[in-house]
Structure formats: C-alpha cells, structure tokens
C-alpha cells in the first residue's frame, strides 16, 4: 500500500514541481503591461526601455501594451501611470490688488509623458505631485494677486488659468509630466469678517430694494387715486355746469336729506328744528294774503 502510494504521489509531486517551476520562470521573464500603465525596465539599476509610453492621440490596442520579456533578476520594472491624474492644491488664501481676500481651491490635471525622466527626477507620481503642488500654489497666488477682485470672478479668469498652466508646465516638464489643465474649483470669500460683511452688504441692498419697491408702490397708488379724483371732478363739472343755479338747489336738497337722515341712512345725530313762521316753508302756514 505504501509503495504504490509513494509512487503515485511522487508522480504527482513531480508534476507539481514542474508546474511551479514553469510558473516561476514565466513570472520572472514575462510581464504584462496594461493599457493604463507605462513600464520602465531598469537593467542593473540603469533605465533601459520604456514600454507603452504615452503618445498623444494613439489608438488603443496599438500602444505597446501587452506582454513584454525581461531577464529574470536583472531587469526590474517600474510602473508609471499613463492616465491623466489630478492633484488638488491645498486651499490658498489669495490677496487681490484691491486687498480683498479670496480662498481658492484649484486642481491640476497632468500625465506622465516621459516616464524615464520622471523616474530619474522624481521616482513616483506621488513625488511629482508633491513637487508641483507648492508651485501651483505660488503661481496661483502670484497670478491672482496681480488682479483686482472683480476680475477674478470674471471671464478674464481663463487667461489667468492659461498663465498658471504655462508656468506650471515649465516645471512639470522637468519631471517628465505635462499639465493638461489647471482650473479653479472654488473661489470663496474667507469665513469670518469678509463673508459677514458681504452678507451684510447683500442684506442692506435687499432692504434698500424692499423700501424702494414699497415707496414706488405708494407713489403709483397715489397717482392712480389722484387721477381718479380728477376724472370724477371732470365728470361732475361737465354735468353740473349746465345749470349751476339748479345744481346748487338740487345739491342742497340732497344735502338736507343726508344731514337729517331721511334718505334711508341713519342720521349722525338727533335733530331739533326751531322754525320761525317767516320761514320759507311755513309761509303758507299763515295763509296767503
């Protein structure tokens, strides 16, 4: 039983060892370069070849990605991202020429276009970012600091960004990187007094607006009322002026009825009338002569 066991297992072991050996040899002689990475082969510590290096507007599938051969234990591969990467700048406080402070968040997008140079000068993408970040910050401060606050918000910002990008690119080239884009993500007033005073300005502006709207409304209302009065007066005059004397009598009669509450309204006060027999109304009382 044991003998057969051993023979069988020895055979299996043999296969296993062969497989492991094949795996080890393969893994040390072959590497797969994915589309998203550039491979820098370092031979005896000296950079030798770059596979799948970035070229603008290349077609995928024909970029150099795929299987590469290397000499085991001699060639070492450094992987470098081929994609567009981004790094955020820390929040910067920027002072405009008119002494207004602005908190700026910016980001830059870059890609490694020269892996060899990058590997020599920086070593890794992270180190490139660390090198570029302060430069982005300082060029942002410089560029924005040359301008009045209002223009930081205006379309002119595009030109500012281009200047910063050019400036940053000059440094990035030294690291084998290319700045694809620099953009201001946020530009805010700092918390505290500047923000509060901005709020206050907005508030008072609104209050002013509210008051002027009210005043304007009142004015319009008065005009409408006055026009109506004038028109009514015109209507009255046109009608009554046909016979002022009769109008006087007619209106007096109306007025009496109103005053003494005989036109269906409630009289405002009680009335006592003391009449002299000489009164026009009582003249007939005495009998005509």
């Amino acid at each position: 039983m044991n003998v057969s066991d051993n023979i069988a297992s020895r055979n299996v072991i043999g296969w296993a060892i062969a497989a492991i050996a094949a795996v080890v040899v393969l893994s040390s002689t072959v590497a797969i370069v994915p589309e998203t990475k550039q491979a820098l082969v370092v031979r005896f510590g000296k950079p030798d070849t770059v596979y799948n290096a970035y070229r603008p507007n290349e077609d995928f599938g024909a970029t150099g990605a795929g299987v590469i051969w290397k000499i085991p234990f001699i060639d070492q591969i450094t992987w470098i991202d081929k994609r567009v990467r981004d790094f955020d700048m820390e929040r910067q406080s920027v002072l405009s020429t008119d002494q207004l402070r602005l908190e700026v968040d910016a980001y830059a997008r870059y890609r490694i276009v020269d892996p060899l140079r990058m590997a020599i000068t920086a070593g890794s993408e992270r180190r490139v970012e660390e090198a570029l970040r302060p430069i982005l910050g300082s060029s942002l401060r410089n560029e924005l600091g040359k301008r009045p606050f209002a223009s930081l918000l205006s379309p002119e910002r595009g030109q500012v960004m281009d200047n910063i990008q050019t400036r940053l690119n000059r440094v990035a080239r030294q690291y084998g990187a290319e700045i694809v884009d620099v953009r201001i993500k946020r530009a805010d007033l700092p918390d505290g007094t500047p923000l509060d005073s901005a709020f206050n300005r907005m508030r008072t502006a609104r209050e002013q607006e509210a008051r002027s709207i009210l005043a304007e409304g009142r004015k319009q209302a008065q005009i409408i009322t006055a026009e109506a009065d004038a028109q009514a007066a015109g209507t009255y005059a046109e009608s009554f002026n046909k016979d002022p004397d009769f109008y006087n009598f007619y209106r007096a009669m109306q007025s009496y009825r109103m005053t003494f509450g005989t036109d269906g309204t409630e009289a405002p006060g009680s009335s006592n009338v003391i009449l002299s027999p000489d009164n026009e109304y009582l003249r007939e009382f005495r009998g005509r002569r």
Partner: protein
Amino acid sequence: MQIRAPPGKGTVFPPIRTYNDRMNDSDSSGMASRPMLNEGGPWGGGGSGGGGGGDDGNPWNQPPRGRPGRGPAGRSAIDELLRRGRARFGGRGGPEPDAGRIALWAVGGLLLVWILWTSSHRIDPQERGVVTRLGSYATTLEPGMRFSFPAPIDIVTKVDIEDIRVKDIPQGGGNSQNLMLTGDQNIIDLAYSVRWNIRDPELYLYELADPDETVAEVAESAMRAEIARVALNDAMGPQRSQIEGRVQQRMQEILDSYRAGITVQGVAIKQADPPAAVVEAFKSVSAAQQQAQAYLNEARAYAQQLGAKAEGEAAAFDKVYAEYKLAPEVTRRRMYYETMERVLAKTDKTVIETQNVMPYIPLPPAQPKPAQQQ
C-alpha cells in the same frame, strides 16, 4: 461530491476511511501533492483574473493552455502505476488509485468550468465589453452572447454605457450650503446635479485615473466659472436654464479635452437661493413687492368706485335737470316741499312766533360722532 467513489470500485465506506487516515497520519507528501495540483488550475487563474493584470498575472497563463494537452497523458501514466500497484497488492490497493484519479478529474473539471466561465460573456444591451488580451486592448464586445479567450489571457470589463449617472453637488445633499460668488459679487447658495454617461468605454477606462471624481470637479469648476459671469438675480431666476446649458457645454468641452469618453447629458440646478444668512432680507423684498401690489390694487379699486359714483351722480342730475327744464318753477317747488317734508317729518320741531323769546334748546349730551358719510 468528488469524494464519492465511482460505483463498482469496491465498497464506498472503507476506501474513504483509509484515504482519510492516510491523509491525516502518515504520508505528508501525499497530502502536499493534492493542494498543489489544485493551485495550478483555478486558484492561479482566479488570482490573476481578480488582479486584472500586473506582474503576477502571467505565470498562470501557462496552466490553462498547457494543462488540457498534458492532462490525459498524466492520467494514463498514473493509471499505469496504479494498475501495477493493484496487481501487486490485490484488492487492498483499490482506494488509492481512486484518490489520485479523482484529484485529476477534479482539477480537469474545475479547469473546464473555469475556461467556460471566463470565455463566454453575456453582454446586456446597455453594456459593452472591453477586452484586453494580455494587457493590451483587443476589441470591444457588442451586446449579445460573446466569446473570448479564457481569463487570464482575455479579460473582459463590462461597462454600462447607457446608464445615466447622477452626480449631486454638493455631495450628499443635506443642509450644507454650497456658496458661490456671483458676477455682481453677491453670494448664492447653489445645489445642482449633473447627469452623464459613458460614450466611449475604452477612453473611459484608459484615459483618466479617476473619471467619476473628474466629472465632479469639472462640474464644480464649470458651474463656478459660469455663476461668476451672471448677476445674483439672474442666477436665481430667469437665466437658470441658460446657465444649465452653458455649464453643460463647458463641461463637455473640458471633458473632451481630457479625452474622458464621457457625455454630459444635462446639468440641473436644483436650488438657487440666497444664503441662509440673508434669506430674511430677500423675503422682505418679496414682501415689499406684494405690499406695493396691494397699494396699487387698493388705489385702482378706489378709482373705479369713485368713477362709477361720479358717473352715477352726474347721470342722476342730468335726468332731473332734463325734467326741471320742462317746468322749472314747479319742479323746484315740488322738490323743495318734498325735501322739507321728509326732513321735518323726522325731526322735533319748534315753531316760535315771538321774536323776543330766548329759545331753550334741549341739546343731548355730547357723544362721539360717527364719521360722516357722504
């Protein structure tokens, strides 16, 4: 499942027991060989399939290709050995050959399953399958049942290109404010969302390190640049849709310049309000607008009322005057008497004959007078 011995090869229970004993006690080499064989197959493939490339992916290329060819040869060699062993030791040798064969069958079976599993792909209508062959982009699979080389030679990444993703800014919503400076140096609290989908799966996978985050940052940048060009009132009201359109356009331009392979489907401003700190003042403006409108309404109502009253009175006078002109004296008298009659009928009257009497007038106690009506 594979432990179960094939029928007709001795009894089921004893073999299994012996097999287990051997595994546990004596022969450690036999134990080692079995996991090893397993690792050569599905384990290795699984490792590289999950890893998706990189250095350790390639060693496992070998097993899937090489194994099926060599498998039968290995099996027959072992069979040969086992047959010899069985001949020498009679029936007692039965269980061991079974164990070896089972292991090989298991490996072969798993390998087959692995190949079938990783080489056939069901691509749904909204998906595209991006195939990388040994790391290099090979092709893009259209919807349907598609086949590729098994992993890890071909690795298929399914990308949903129809699904419209929505990015809300500020992220997470809630009651956090997203303050922006407007062109007239006011501050607006803006919340919006961006809808986007993948136009080009290869660009999407290979061009940007973090496409989703890029969309968010580009959106923020484009929106702020746009808001910085318009006045607060325009941003809150009438120009919203134009702003949305321009932000979408600007985002698309930026993303295209990154070769992101992304289409911005739309930008929707969900909320454009004054900041919480000044919202009261903004409310007072709309209150003032309402109040002004109320003033105007009152004035108009008064005007209409007054106009109608004037016309009515004038018309009444005209009618009476027309009659009066026909018989002036009589009409005048009649009106006079009618009025006096009605007035005096309702009042207390005192007629004083003598000129010398000092009249005593019983005035009622003073009362607040109601406003006089006209």
